Every structure is written in C-alpha cells, then in structure tokens.
C-alpha cells in the first residue's frame, strides 16, 4: 500500500495540546507549500486547553487533491498517551518517529513499519536553559528531523521562522538552532531522505493557505459589514477574531483612533442575535458567527427576523452534535435545523461554502441576499473549513462591486410617495420596501413579530395574516435563483449515476470520483451551494437513475431536504453518510459508493 512516493504521502503528528506544537506543525506544512507542492492540513484538537491528545495531519498532494486520503505514512508520535493508537494507524511500510529519550521497545511490535527514535527531550534539555523553551523547542527539533528525512528546503524553513518571529528577533535564532538540532541528528543517524520525500514543484503559485473563518471574517469586511455581535463558541470564535483583526487594521481612523465599526461580545447567543437584528433593522450590515448550540438558542429571534422581514446574517460553523457533542470535531449536522429554524411556518436561505475561498465570497453574498430578501441567511461552514488552513486560489476582489442594499427607500423617495406601507408588494416581486429610522417622517412604521397586515398594521384577521405569509413563502421561493448556483462536473463517459454533495465533502468527493472513474465507474457530480434549491438541482437528479448523496451527518439531512423540497423520487437517492467527526477522506466515499454500486449490480 505505501510504496515509495514523492509528493504524495501523509505525515501525522501526534502531540499533547498546550505545548506549542500547532505552530510548529503549521510551519512544516507551510514549508512544503512554499516549495510549490500542494498540501492538505487537518488539525484535530481536544475540547480543553492543555494536556490532552491532539493530532495534526499533513497530506502532501502533488496531484492537488483537496481532501484527506485516509492513509498515514509518517507518524510523529510525541504523545505517550496515544502511542498505541498512533502506531496502529500507520500504513504498512510507514515510518514512526518518536522521542527515544525514554526508549519504548514495544514499538517493535509492528514489523511492517520502521521506527526512528530521536532523543528530542535530551537534546533540547542540553541545548536550552529555560524550562518553557525546552518544551517548545522539542517541536522545532522534530520539524528539523522531518526536514532532513523529507528533503525539505532549509532556506524555506528559515524564511518561515523569520516571518513568524518578525517582531521577536531573539526567538529566530533559538528556533533555528532547534531545527538544526533535529536536522543534524537525522542526517547523521538515518539515511536521508526517506522513500517519502518532497520535491519542489510549481503548483502553489497564485495560491494562499488560509482558514475559512479568517476568510469569512475578511469577507464581512469587504461586504461592508460594520456591526458584529457574538458569543464565544468553538469553532466560530476565530471568525469574529478575523473580522476584529482586519477592522482594527483597516477601519480605524489614523488621526482620531475612532472606529468605523462596532463589535460586541454579547452575554449569550440570544443577545447576539437580538443585537444583529437591531443593527440590521437600523441599516448597518451586521452578522453573527456561532455554532449549533447558538442556532438552537437563536431560534426564537430567527423566526422574528423572518416574520418581521429583517436582514440577519448568521455563520454556523458546524460541529458534532447533538447538545455539546464533540465541540472540536466536524460535522454537517445543522442543515435541517437552519432550513426551517424557529416555530411556526418558517423557511430560510442557506449557503454552503466548500472551502475558505467560498467562505470569503459567500460572506459577501450572504449580506447581499439578506438585504435583498430582508430575511435571515445562514452560511453553513464547519470546523474542517473554518479552522483548518486550506490551499485555495488567492482571494480576489472586483473593485466595481457595490453592495445590494435591497429595497430601502431614501428620504428623497419617501418625500415623493404619498404613503409608505411597510409590507406591501408594490413591485409584484414579493419583496416590500423598507425604510430606516430617522430618515424621514413618512418612513415611520411599527415593526412587530405579532400578526400584521400588508399595510403594516396589527391584525388578528385570518385573511390578512394569510396574505402576508403567502407572500413570504413566495419571496423565499424566488430566492432560489439568487443563491449561488450548484457546481456540476460531468464525466466524459456516459453515465446515469451521479454524486450530489455539499460543503466540505467536496475535496474527498472529487478525488473519490476520479478514482471510481479509473475503476470503471464514471459518475457525474453536483455540488449544491444554496437553498432553496434552484430548478437545476431537481433536473440534475431527474436526469440520473442513481444519485449518491454524500454528507456528514447521521440523519441524511440534505437528502431529506431534497425529498421535501423537490419532486425527485426517493429511490433514486442513496445516502453516503460520514459522521465520526473527522474530516471526510476520499477512501470512505470511494468504498461506500463502490460497495453500493456493486450491490446494485448484483441486485
């Protein structure tokens, strides 16, 4: 299975959290990236601060695939707690690197892997004086070991160290020294490089490594959002951190120190929702990032915004549910909840980014759609996209972009009209005009979550009520043609089978599909990017006999939405469900579809 390979293998680093390993591991990944070789990085961390197992997986993927493979060729086992499990996970023919300051003879239990011991602790204890450095530098030392073993470019590594510690020059030497320690040890004691090695390529030009939350935060800046409120929750916190960082950088008046934005850490998710609704209602572009528990708590306010027609942008960075679940593991498990969140008849607009690039774009689109349709819009990301660094095309911006603020009447417009009615469908597009407080006396109206008629008045009349909610339903339906269109990849071979998927499944699905085709099973592929589904989604399914719906939850939530919202036949749809909390790997998709298609053939 694990034959020798250049630019196509997986390194996994098993650490204890709180020991500074994450930045060393990131550095390693970035070094490979700077050598022009595509990489996929996944950080799997525990829900605590210090002392529990954490893993970082780097896939070197010369082919440019964007998902996990499911293999591990090189394991750096720095956590005694998980030695056993880490050893077991290694593919045959792989290498295990560990700190043999304290030798572990039982590593010899597997004959099909090579164990490389490095006295990391001993070397660092000898080389460094401060206790904290000794711990931190062990990480850099193994980076040095790997650099030697994989034939990494030391200049690149050094450049990265310099960038990293640009503001703390003292640390540059220290880190360089640690890298050298490991590098030299490996050179002396092992035959470098291994059969797995990195060779410079030219495939990362025009690309960046960025995580989805940072990209989404940046997207909100470009969207012109000026207000954000949130309550801290893993894994959404870094989205607001990103927004805050760029605002501090780009939106503070140099002379006065005054801000052109406002960020509020709310007392809980209900309050965060209320604040965003208040700001949006008052004409600022506003948003809140959260995760599943936050959506549950915001449910009442979501229904209010839906019914009172107030723009409301939410980012749900999904994590494993139900309840607190596994807060640092990934899933796509809030799809159904978000589609229909809140009591009563409610339905919402959802966007499904597949990578940080789309997080950036869809952050902008979400604001446009929320204001155009005057309603909640959910961007459904997840931990995998949100918190891992992904290699994506450099983010780009069209300077001619102007926000779509939707149908807001200006003072001049109000001056001209005879009487303003908040909920009247003047244009026949199901979208009424709105006004902002303070703009003009004629614009004043009363917003309420209780029964109201098209004139904006209070009502308990059944027909008036119906007229209004019927329009809401039509308005929602009409957004189908405005959400991002699905991405379709057609096989060059004729086939009546297809995959339908969404969001962070994309990388694994694309790769599985290629490999299935190579195996003689050609498949078309549609990735949905928005809800309500446009007619293309339904047509795509209708045009196939068998559609594998790949998603990351237990209950086939996307499939259920397809059943409820399109006229497709149930028996066409076959679920491929992954919900263990690890980012999806192509092998899983490959195996499941192969199995299913073989069963189908034999049936």
């Amino acid at each position: 299975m694990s034959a020798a390979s250049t630019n196509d293998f997986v390194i996994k680093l098993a650490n204890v959290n709180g020991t500074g390993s994450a930045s060393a591991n990131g550095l390693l990944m970035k070094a490979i990236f700077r050598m022009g070789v595509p990489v996929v990085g996944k950080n799997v961390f525990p829900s605590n601060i210090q002392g529990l197992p954490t893993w970082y997986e780097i896939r070197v993927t010369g082919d440019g695939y964007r998902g996990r493979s499911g293999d591990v060729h090189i394991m750096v086992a720095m956590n005694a707690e998980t030695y056993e499990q880490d050893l077991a996970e290694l593919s045959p023919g792989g290498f295990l690197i560990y700190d043999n300051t304290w030798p572990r003879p039982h590593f010899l239990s597997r004959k099909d892997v090579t164990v490389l011991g490095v006295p990391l602790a001993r070397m660092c204890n000898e080389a460094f004086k401060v206790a904290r450095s000794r711990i931190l530098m062990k990480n850099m030392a193994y980076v040095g070991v790997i650099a030697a073993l994989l034939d990494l470019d030391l200049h690149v590594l050094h450049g990265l160290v310099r960038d990293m510690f640009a503001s703390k020059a003292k640390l540059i030497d220290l880190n360089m020294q640690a890298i050298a320690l490991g590098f030299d040890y490996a050179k002396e004691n092992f035959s470098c490089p291994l059969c797995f090695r990195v060779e410079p390529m030219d495939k990362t030009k025009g690309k960046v490594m960025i995580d989805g939350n940072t990209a989404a935060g940046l997207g909100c800046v470009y969207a012109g959002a000026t207000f954000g409120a949130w309550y801290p929750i893993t894994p959404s916190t870094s989205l607001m951190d990103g927004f805050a960082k760029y605002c501090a950088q780009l939106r503070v008046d140099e002379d006065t120190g005054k801000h052109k934005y406002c960020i509020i850490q709310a007392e809980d998710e209900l309050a965060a929702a209320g604040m965003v609704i208040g700001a949006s209602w008052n004409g600022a572009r506003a948003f809140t990032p959260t995760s599943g528990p936050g959506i549950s708590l915001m449910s009442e306010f979501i229904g209010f915004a839906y019914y009172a027609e107030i723009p409301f942008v939410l980012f749900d960075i999904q994590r494993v549910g139900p309840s607190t679940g596994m807060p640092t593991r990934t899933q796509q498990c809030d799809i159904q909840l978000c589609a229909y969140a809140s009591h009563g008849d409610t339905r919402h607009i959802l966007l499904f980014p597949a990578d940080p690039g789309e997080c950036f774009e869809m952050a902008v689109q979400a604001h446009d759609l929320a204001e155009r349709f005057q309603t909640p819009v959910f961007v459904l990301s997840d931990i995998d996209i949100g918190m891992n660094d992904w290699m994506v095309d450099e983010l780009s911006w069209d300077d001619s972009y102007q926000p779509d603020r939707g149908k807001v009447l200006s003072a001049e417009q109000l001056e001209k009209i005879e009487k303003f009615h908040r909920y009247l469908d003047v244009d026949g597009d199901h979208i009424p005009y709105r006004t902002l407080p303070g703009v003009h006396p004629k614009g004043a109206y009363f917003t309420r979550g209780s029964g109201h008629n098209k004139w904006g008045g209070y009502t308990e009349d059944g027909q008036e009520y119906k007229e209004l909610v019927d329009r809401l339903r039509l308005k929602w339906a009409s957004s189908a043609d405005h959400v991002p269109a699905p991405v379709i990849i057609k096989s060059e071979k004729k086939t009546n089978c297809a995959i339908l998927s969404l969001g962070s499944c994309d990388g694994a699905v694309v790769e599985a599909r290629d490999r299935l085709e190579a195996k003689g099973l050609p498949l078309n592929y549609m990735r949905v990017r928005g809800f309500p589904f446009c007619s293309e989604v339904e047509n795509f399914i209708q045009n196939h006999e068998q559609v594998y719906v790949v998603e990351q939850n237990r209950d086939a939530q996307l499939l259920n939405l397809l059943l409820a919202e399109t006229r497709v036949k149930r028996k066409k749809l076959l679920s491929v469900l992954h919900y263990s909390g690890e980012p999806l790997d192509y092998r899983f998709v490959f195996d499941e579809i192969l199995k299913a298609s073989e069963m189908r053939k034999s049936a």
Partner: protein
Amino acid sequence: MTSFVKPRIRRKNQPVNELGLTRADYEGAMSTLCAGCGHDSVTASMARAFFRLSIEPHRAVKVSGIGCSSKTTAYFLRESHGNNTVHGRMPSVATGAAAANSSLTYIGVSGDGDSLSIGLGQFVHAMRRNVNMLYVLENNGVYGLTKGQFSASADIGSLAKKGAPNEQPPIDPVSLALSVGATFVARGFSGDREQLVPLIEAGLKHKGFGLIDVISPCVSFNDHKGSTKSYAHTYKYYHKSVHADFVPPSKDIKVKYDEGEMMPVELHDGGVIRLRKLERGFDPRDRAAATMALAKAQQNKEILTGLIHIDESHPDMHELNRMEERPLNEIPYAELNPGAAKLAELQKNFR
C-alpha cells in the same frame, strides 16, 4: 382588525414646542389597554416629555418586548419607528440599533415580567454596557397580558387576586441597577406625572443607560387590597426623595445652589439636571450612598422615588467602543471597502 388610529384634531391656540409641533403630534394609536391601566398614564408622560424636549418624532426609536407594557410603544409618537420585539429580549435589539445609529433618541419600554424574569440577563447587560437609551420599566408586580401571575417584583406578602400570597423576595430593579453599576437610576409612579415627566426628560438626555422603574398599577389583576403594587398601597408608602428638574441647554442655568440642597448635574449636551433633595440625607451622585439609602428605605418599607443615582462620568457604549460620531449606517461603502489591491497585500501573510 387593523390597529386603531386616533383621529388627529388640531385645536386653535394649543401649545406648540420649539419645532412648532403640538402635543397631538406626539400621540400614537389608540390604546387597547384596560381602562385605568397605569401604563396609559406612563404613555402620556412619555409623549409629554418628548414634546417638551422638542425631539422630532421620526428621530426617536421606540423598542419594547412583550406584555401590556410593551404594547404601549404603539400608543405614542406615531411618527417614529417602533420595534416590538420578542419577550424579554428588547435590550439586545436596542443595543444593536443604538450601535448602528447614535444620532437618534432611543426609548425602551418594558414590564416587570419582561425585564426581571425572562429578560433579566439582557436587562443587566444593557446597563453594564451603558447603552445610550432610556429604559422605562412599567412595574405592576404581575404578568398583565397572561392574566395575573406574580412577577419577580411582587413583594413578599403581596396577595394575588385569587388570594394566594407571594413568598419569594422581590427583585427590585433599582437595587439591581445600582449593584451592576448603572449610570442613571430613578423610580417614579404612573400616578405622579409631575415627578415622572422631568425624570423621563432627564433620562432621555442622559448619555448612557437611563433606567426609570415606574410603579404602574394593573387594574385588572393587581389593584386589589393586599397588593403592594396597587394604587392605594403606592400612594401610602410613596416617598419622594429627590426631585429632578431638567433644564435644556438653551436656558440660562447660572443659578446659585446651596450645596446639599440643590445639586446640578451637567449633561454631555450642555443641559442640566437640577436635583432637589426633599428629605433624606444622601447624594444621588454617590453610588454607595444611594445604595445605602435604598437599603434603609427597604428596611422601613418605604418606596423611595425620584432620581436615585446619576453618574455622568462613565463613558457610554459608543465611547467605550471608540466609535466615530457618524452613524455606522451612514458611512459610505467606499470608505468601508479596502479594495482589491489591499486584498492582495493582506494575503502576503498567507503564503
């Protein structure tokens, strides 16, 4: 049926304010509350205060939660925007709205159920943030709209209409506000407009969060004998402690005060609140003193009213957040968009 619109009648020689508007211009839809409900009197006082301050109606924003009290935002200032949100969560909507546009005047109207039970957390945190708004808590010790359950402000021993006594200690919004550092804390009574109107004026002009706890009897469910939030009980134990006059910036206020008797508090816009001590020996500008005065009044079962605490020194939410003067919703997109070139530059860190 649709909401009731009060007919607009203009009489000759009626008083007008600086904007040339009449009192009727500050009215709203016809109330649908019970005849005699305290809340209707509070509504009238609010309308009067806006009239006297010559605030353009469309430059005011009214927010509320759910309850009979919360409905009243529809019954005054017809020409301003209202947002009747969800139960107990008005403070957050007000916070967001105020953040987006600091140039408007914000008034929140709530009830004791809305503020002290379901909404307690938001209520406290809005005070903590010192959001620039006036918050009028129409306190009747009962859930009016859901027909008479005790609220968290019901006093120990207070009898329900059906006769059961409340035995849990009340949450007093005024004590609570002092304990979490609110910067303007007052108490009034729906039945005393003379005291209430200037308090509302002062609260609207205070830069930061102003709380007025207004005792506002519910005639349908909590105005019987044995209720401690009835008209009769309130009149009996009512204790005016500090009278507040609001003097707008335009007026000449260079009057001399005897220290300890008259306490002028200068507001950010140049207006002044003139505090007149009526009896008790404390200084509302000192939070600890106010806390102690309140504790003593509680021991004596007195209802201390008036402006109980004011602190003009603490920055409001906008100042704390270093926001510029211009409302967020008026900053043109061109100023907010960093542009394509900047995006390319920023991404150097991502390589």
